[in-house]
Each structure stands twice: as C-alpha cells, then as structure tokens.
C-alpha cells in the first residue's frame, strides 16, 4: 500500500492531487514552535522539496513545544536537527537545511527557489523581511504568529490578496511589544496554529477549498473563540515595497531581543537625589517640564551628545509617551552606559505629577 494512500483515496485529492504535492517546494522560515508542526505535516504529506531556515540551536526550554527535537539534539542547529528527524519520517522527499540567518541579502535568491513561503519566525524584524521578500518574489506567504494563549493565521501575497503590511503597515516601535520568546506560551498553541498553517499550504498546492487570503483568523486557546477578520489589499503599500526592490538586499535588520529596558515611574524617583532627568524629545515639543532640572538631548542627537550625560548619576529618561525613552535606554545600554531608566509616564503626565509634588511640599511647610 502506498505511503500516501489515505490522501489518494480522498476523491478531492486522488493521485493527481498527490502528484501536485510531490511536485511542490515549500520554504519554512524558523523551525521553532510554529515551524516544527508545519514541517512535520508537510513532510508527512510528501511535499517534494522542503527547505528549512534557522540559525538557532536547540535549547532545553524549546522541548516543551518544539516537537521535532529531543534531549539527543540539545545544542544542535535546529535546521540540521529538524532535517535529520524529518528524513526518518519521509525518505522519499528532498529536505534542505539552511543553518543560517535569513537576511535581506539572501532572502530573495532563496525564496525564488520555492513555490510557497511559511513564516514561523519569532520577531517583527524578520516577519517584515519575510513579507517584503515574498512580495518582491511574488510568492504566497502562509503566516502564523502567537502570543501566550492566542494565535493569528493568514495567507498573504496570494492571488492579488493583501500582504502583512496591509494589515500592520510598519513594525511596532521597539520596546512597545514583547518581541522574543521570553514571554511564556502554552506549548500546544503553536502546535494548533502551525497545523493550521500546514493546512493552508496544502490547500494552496491542491487548489482546494477556501484559503485565508484576505482574512486573518484569530484563535484563543482559552475561550475557544475564533474570529475571522477581513483585511483589504493596499496597492499603495505593496507598490512601495516593490519600488524599493533594488535596495532591498542592502538593508539590515537589527534584532536586539536580549536588551531589557528597565522602566521606572516618575513618582518613585521624583524626590531622590543623584538622578539626572533627560528629555529626549525634540526642542520644539510641548509641554516643557517646570520645577525639575532637565537635560535636553533629542533622541536623534543622543549618540553625539554622550558628554551631556552625568556618569555619576542615575539617568531617568523621558519623552512624550514613553516609547522614545525606551529606545534611548536601549541605545545607551548598547553603548555600555550603565544606570539608565526609561520613565513610564509621558511629558504631560510628568508635568502634572511634579506640580502636585511641589504643591504638597509647600503645604507641608
């Protein structure tokens, strides 16, 4: 009996459908929580060529959800370890491991060698890179992403449908969204979302049913509430990616998940000595802060004004909303400047809190 018998006896698939699967080439970016189930099902289904991109190595904390690995593969490269496991699952297909980082330099060339791209990455920078390279190479992209107990699935760049940028035009400001796998995740969740991605891939190959193109499926593992939201294609957004195609390979991504920004509330530090308050807003921005000694260094000029920082003091950095101050702290930490804190409150709130603080002090007198 043939390996693919249970596919072939489905009238919707048959031998012709199974041949389509065998002739297809799918590239999976990231062999982690999402990548593992995607790879497992696509390999089992007999996808003719499976590519795996992952530069990372297997860590014991991965085993809770990354089901292709075990204690024997700890410390091994994930793309290589996955290939070894998958070759045992199916030795009739071709599995190619790319034990390297996906970059703007290698993405386009790599994507051109495949029919469908699967996004199983774990950070925004690479997700936008994958999306843009899919637009440039005109390949369908099967997207999946997770957060704690919730998942999102969609199909982008397929039959003139929307792309990830039509949903979220730009990456969130750094520091505004937890970016790496440090936040917990229910182990089975990437299994569910990854299996849904594998299902979308097979539907595209087989031209069966309806795909999630133009739709975002939102799944909540705790409430079992599913929402399917409509997304519209923005030609303008897609054109702007294509317009910049010539420069694409020169771009660089900068993933700094390792830096943790320490934040502090203004009330906790307002009456302390030995603190330098630094305003990283541009000179024209309002309101100005009164009743507090403030050093003004706009974020855009911070790197060239390091001499304004008082190395003997703790540095409390603020801006209009708390986002630029986080970026400033990240920047200073990268430059090895210690004792930097991002103030949670924005300038307007700080102004009010300081006013009240001074009122309170004068009442006490």
């Amino acid at each position, binding site marked *: 009996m043939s390996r693919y018998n249970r596919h072939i006896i489905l009238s919707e698939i048959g031998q012709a459908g199974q041949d389509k699967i065998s002739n297809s080439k799918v590239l999976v970016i990231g062999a982690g929580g999402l990548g593992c189930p995607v790879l497992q099902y696509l390999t089992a289904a007999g996808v003719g060529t499976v590519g795996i991109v992952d530069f990372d190595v297997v860590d014991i904390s991965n085993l809770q959800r990354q089901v292709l690995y075990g204690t024997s593969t700890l410390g091994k490269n994930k793309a290589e370890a996955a290939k070894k496991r998958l070759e045992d699952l199916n030795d009739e297909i071709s599995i190619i491991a790319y034990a390297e980082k996906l970059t703007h330099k290698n993405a386009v060339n790599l994507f051109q060698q495949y029919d469908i791209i699967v996004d199983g990455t774990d950070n925004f920078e690479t997700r936008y890179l994958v999306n843009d390279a899919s637009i440039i190479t005109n390949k369908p992209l099967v997207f999946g*992403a997770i*957060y704690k107990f919730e998942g999102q699935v969609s199909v982008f760049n397929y039959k003139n449908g929307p792309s990830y940028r039509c949903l979220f035009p730009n990456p969130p*400001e750094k520091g505004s969204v937890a970016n790496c796998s440090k936040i917990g995740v229910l182990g089975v969740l990437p299994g569910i979302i990854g299996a849904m991605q594998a299902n979308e891939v097979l539907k595209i190959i087989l031209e069966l049913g309806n795909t999630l193109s133009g739709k975002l499926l939102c799944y909540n593992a705790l409430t079992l509430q599913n929402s399917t939201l409509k997304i519209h294609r923005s030609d303008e957004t897609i054109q702007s990616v294509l317009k910049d195609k010539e420069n694409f390979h020169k771009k660089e991504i900068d993933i700094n998940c390792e830096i943790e920004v320490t934040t502090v509330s203004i009330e906790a530090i307002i009456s302390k000595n030995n603190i330098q308050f630094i305003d990283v807003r541009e000179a024209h921005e309002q309101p100005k802060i009164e009743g507090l000694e403030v050093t003004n260094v706009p974020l855009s000029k911070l790197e060239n004004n390091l001499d304004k920082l008082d190395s003997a003091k703790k540095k409390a950095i603020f801006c209009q909303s708390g986002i630029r101050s986080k970026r400033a702290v990240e920047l200073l930490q990268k430059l090895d400047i210690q004792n930097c804190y991002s103030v949670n409150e924005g300038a307007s709130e700080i102004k009010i809190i300081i006013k009240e603080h001074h009122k309170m002090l004068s009442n006490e007198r």
Partner: protein
Amino acid sequence: MHITIKYFGQIAEVTQTEEESLEFSGSLVSELLETLHSKYNTLKNKDFQVVQNQELISIETKLTGDDIALLPPFAGG
C-alpha cells in the same frame, strides 16, 4: 449608541478584560479611541488596528453600532 469592544492579546492585558460594552454618543471610531485612551492610560504605548463588524477599518470610519475590536500584532513563533 451601545457598543461592544473586544480586546486581543496585549491589549486585553491593558484593559484587564477581553470584552466590554459601553454607551457612546460620538460618531467616529477615532472619537471612541480617544475615550478608550483616557480610560486606559497605557493604551497609547500599544500598536493595534481597529476592527468593526469583523473588518479592518481606518479610524476615520463612522461607528455603525457593530462590534469593535482592537487587534495588536503578535511576534511569537
């Protein structure tokens, strides 16, 4: 108008609820967002898109009374 608002992911952590209903007299999605921003102080630090009646919309859209949802991007994989 009576509006039900759903919150996904990190947004539900800011609001401490996944769903709420409120009476609202404004007519635009942007006005509703202003109300939510003043109700939830840290919402302004979050990235999200707005969904009305299961469809992604711009914030200049008129409120129809259908369900609204605030949808943040997820990075995890």
